[in-house]
């Protein structure tokens, strides 16, 4: 995460802000991964992209956690961009 104010007296505050932001992000992604039905969402995209499907897939719906949706899988194998 970028820290334009880094350096000097405000460094501790910058670090604290980054920790808070990344902690909130990690927690929210874990909850989202369990709240979104990723298997259904993916299936819908594939179905609607098939010949005869409609042009726009509806959104993923809430449901049980998808086993493939491990937000902690963002390790060295997954680049943020």
């Amino acid at each position, binding site marked *: 995460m970028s820290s334009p104010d880094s350096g000097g007296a405000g460094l501790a505050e910058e670090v604290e*802000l980054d920790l808070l932001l990344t902690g*909130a992000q990690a927690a929210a*992604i874990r909850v*989202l991964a369990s709240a979104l039905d990723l298997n259904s969402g*993916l299936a819908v995209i594939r179905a609607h992209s098939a010949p005869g499907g409609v042009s726009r*897939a*509806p959104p993923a719906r809430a449901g049980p956690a998808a086993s493939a*949706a491990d937000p902690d899988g963002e390790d060295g194998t997954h680049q943020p961009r």
Partner: protein
Amino acid sequence: MVGFADCYAQEMPRLAWFVMTLGASAEAAADAAQSAFSDAFPVWDTIRHPQAWLRRVAQRAYYRRVAATEILVDSVPERPTRVATADVVERHTEARAVLAALAALPAKQRQVMAWSIDGYSPAEIAAELGADPAAVRQNLTKARRNLKQLLGITGSAR
């Protein structure tokens, strides 16, 4: 290159959070993220930087929805809630506080912070948004200063 299914499984929750940091409810964020993946699927093999591409498209989808809602607020059909914001943020105090603080920022500051939280540098954000790098850096500096104030960060251990 990561396959579509693997990217969807890994990135869908992250992308939804990204849109939430732009100001969306969890439901609207899930809609925008799903819309971006839906747009990506037919052209997946041609997308060189999927994470950035998906964020640009999801951001556009969310802003489009906001604009449409402002004009057609009465025409939005009733539908079941897919992902309640409460489900996402109420369970976690820090997430709730961060979203509230981000929502209090001016739109430009909120936008650059959303990208920054996802790990993009000011130069990368400027490139993705087609914005002046100096303006991005300035907005980031202001956003972080405002966030520290809004979140009560004083430099001491919490």
